[in-house]
């Protein structure tokens, strides 16, 4: 019953710009009818070919992580540069990828490869108010919603897909969706 209640709505709107291998799918994430920023949305594709992707960065600046929510594909190395004058010590103990980068100064960068799917909660051992999330997914089709709740998943092939969505402080939701012209994906939490 709860699961059925959480199944997101699918509404008409927009698939745009046919990609060489698929289309760019636009969507919006909502919570209680309002835009949900920092929502991670991904489409399952466990057998998708491995291709080199962008090199993601989780910056440490102004005693904060930026971005606070990052999504990467399994096997991706994330850079953790320190751009503050003070030391930082990024660690993840709870679940997902577990690591401790030790203390390191401004101007230095450390890397962590996220090698299995799941959510990693990151903190700084020196600055307890710093926190961030890295969601590792086994698919090349993913996005994070912006301040308006909008997101774009690039290069999705035509057909019916299973998608999943998560945002900080909420349960993960899932549903199916068919890529069609002029249809967008709407992910909705109650």
């Amino acid at each position, binding site marked *: 019953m709860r699961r059925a209640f959480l199944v997101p709505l699918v509404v008409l709107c927009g698939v745009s710009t046919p990609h060489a291998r698929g289309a760019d799918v636009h969507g919006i994430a909502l919570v209680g009818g309002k835009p949900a920023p920092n929502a991670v949305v991904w489409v399952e594709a466990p057998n998708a070919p491995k291709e080199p992707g962008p090199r993601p960065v989780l*910056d440490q*600046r*102004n*005693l*904060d992580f*930026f971005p606070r929510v990052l999504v990467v594909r399994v096997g991706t190395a994330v850079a953790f540069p320190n*751009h503050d*004058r*003070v*030391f930082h*010590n990024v*660690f993840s*103990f*709870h679940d997902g990828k*577990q690591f*401790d980068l*030790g*203390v*390191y*100064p*401004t*101007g*230095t960068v450390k890397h962590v490869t996220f090698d299995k799917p799941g959510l990693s909660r990151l903190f700084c*051992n*020196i*600055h*307890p*108010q710093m*926190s961030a999330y890295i969601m590792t997914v086994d698919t090349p089709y993913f996005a994070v919603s912006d301040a308006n709740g909008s997101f774009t998943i690039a290069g999705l092939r035509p057909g019916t897909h299973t998608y999943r969505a998560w945002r900080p402080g909420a349960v993960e939701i899932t549903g199916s969706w068919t890529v069609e012209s002029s249809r967008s994906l709407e992910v909705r939490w109650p």
Partner: protein
Amino acid sequence: MDRRELEKSGSPVAVRTAAALLFFAVALAPVRSYGQTPTTELDVTVGNSTEPARAAAVQLRVFGNAIAGWQYYAEASWAQQWAPRESDAFGSGYPYDKRVRPAEMYVERTLLKGRYLAGVRAGQFRTPFGLYSRSDQTYNGFTRAPLIRYGSYWALSSNFLEDGVSVVVGTPRLVVEASAGIPQDHDQYRRRTGIDSTIRVQAAVGDIVVAASHIHTQPPAIRRFAAGSAVFTGIDARWMRGGVQLRGEWIDGQAFGGTRTFGGYVDASVHRPAMGPVTAILRAERLDYEAGRFSSYPRRYVAGARVRLSSVAVTQINLVHQPTDVRLGGLSAVEFGLTISLRR
């Protein structure tokens, strides 16, 4: 040594000249933009000690990216303590004087060019001596500042603030930080006005960070007999790995002419996965203040925990034992603090 004599000595002038040159070099460098939005933090803390003492404090800070690659940081604090006699309980980094005070307010920019870095900070900032940053000393599990960082022990103070300029040059693993400024302390042990300077050299090797600091500053304004200069040299070190942090500071110098203050502390914080929201803390410290019949030799031992109750609430519990000193007496206390932190 008064201000004119100090300027004749050359070192503050040299520091200020170097700071001015670096300031313009950094300010005119190419710009890189970042998408990070401004951050606002509000901390509210209440505490109780069986010493006895009670305290309440509020800090509001705003920080983020300004223009042309500069970052800004502004903080104001208000705090009050209720105690039948002077106590340093909860005085870990803000003055408890019932007034709204500006704390740190500065702009800074750091440039990285190949293996080298340079940075400048201008405004009001914590005196860059030893483990001086706010996050190193305030509400980090310990309810009291170290003995060497509380003014009434005739040493340094975590409440030392400077109006001036601080510059850093070096590489990420070896950096020199120098500052020149005018004391702007807000607590009752504030220093006299005048030019002062600090220099700090820091090296990082693996997970170990070691540094040496030197400060030449003004003596406390609290007493007429406190003449001459306050001069301290210190070393500090920190190691952190796997949720375990060990660190320590040692200083030697004088708070004013004719005295000597030396001492330091070592402390540990442990947060292993099996400990859940609990971070255990331990500290041992000593301080020797040699001033004839006014000498004192306090020692202090602290054990406690920092417990994260929720995403916004943290509590600190400390057991504090300070053996009896001929002049200062002794102390055994249980202290409890609760901090609510909101960040937007």
